[in-house]
C-alpha cells in the first residue's frame, strides 16, 4: 500500500533530515520502497521547509506526494501553507507549541482529520536537553501514531544518519517522542 507523508516546518528544525530518516528506515531497514523529496528554491532558504516521503511495499512509480496521508507540522506558517491537500481522514501531527490551533479547528473537523499533538520542541529542549533533536522526537511520535516504519528500522536509520557521538541522545529523543502519544 502506498503511504504519502509530508513533514513541514521552518529552516533549521531538521525537517528534511526527518524525511530522509523515515525514507531510509523504510527502504533500507524495513525492505519496503521509499522515495524522499524536498522543497528547493528561494522559499526553502530561511523560510518554510518541507519534505515528503512516499512509502510502498510495491515499486514506486510516481515519486511525488499529491495528497498526503500523513502531515506533520512543526511551524504554523508551514501548516497553513501545506495543509490544504491532506487527505480526508488523514493523520495530522502538530507540535502544539508552534501552532495556533484555533486556526485549523474548522479544517480538521470538516475533513475528519485525525489530529495528534506532539510537543516535540519542548520535549527536545526540556526532556532531552537538546533543542535540535526536536526532529528526532517527532520521528518517534510519527512512528508511534502511524507505523509507517517499524521502530527497529527507525532506530537503525537514525543511527545511520546522525553524527558520531550523538547516537545516544538521538535514540533518547526518538524514545521520548515515541512515548509522547
Amino acid at each position: 500500500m502506498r503511504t504519502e507523508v509530508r513533514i513541514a516546518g521552518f529552516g533549521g528544525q531538521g525537517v528534511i533530515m526527518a524525511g530522509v530518516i523515515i525514507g531510509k528506515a523504510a527502504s533500507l531497514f524495513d525492505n519496503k520502497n521509499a522515495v524522499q523529496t524536498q522543497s528547493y528554491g528561494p522559499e526553502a532558504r530561511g523560510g518554510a521547509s518541507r519534505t515528503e516521503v512516499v512509502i510502498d511495499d510495491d515499486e514506486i512509480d510516481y515519486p511525488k506526494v499529491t495528497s498526503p496521508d500523513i502531515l506533520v507540522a512543526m511551524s504554523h506558517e508551514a501548516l497553513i501553507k501545506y495543509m490544504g491537500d491532506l487527505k480526508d481522514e488523514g493523520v495530522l501531527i502538530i507540535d502544539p507549541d508552534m501552532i495556533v490551533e484555533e486556526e485549523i479547528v474548522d479544517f480538521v473537523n470538516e475533513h475528519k482529520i485525525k489530529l495528534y499533538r506532539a510537543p516535540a520542541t519542548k520535549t527536545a529542549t526540556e526532556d532531552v536537553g537538546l533543542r535540535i533533536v526536536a526532529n528526532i522526537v517527532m520521528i518517534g511520535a510519527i512512528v508511534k501514531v502511524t507505523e509507517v516504519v517499524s521502530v527497529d528500522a527507525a532506530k537503525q536509520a537514525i543511527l545511520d544518519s546522525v553524527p558520531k557521538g550523538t547516537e545516544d541522545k538521538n535514540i533518547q529523543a526518538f524514545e521520548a517522542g515515541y512515548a509522547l502519544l
Partner: protein
Amino acid sequence: MIIIDSKLCKGCDICIATCPKNVYSKSDKVNTKNVYLPFPEHEEGCTKCGLCELSCPDQAIYVEKEVE
C-alpha cells in the same frame, strides 16, 4: 524616535552591534517569522548618527532626525 518595522526585520542583531551608543537590545517579542526583534532600550543615548539605519540589511529602521 526610533521605529523598527517588524514586518521587515529579520532579527540579525546587526543594529545591536553597530550602534556606537549601545542603544539596542534584543526583545522577546516575536514576529510572524519567528524572529526576535530588537528594540531601542536606551533610546535616550541615541545621537541620531544614522549608523543603524544605514547598516540594517533590511531597511527596517527609522531614526527620527531633527528638522533643520
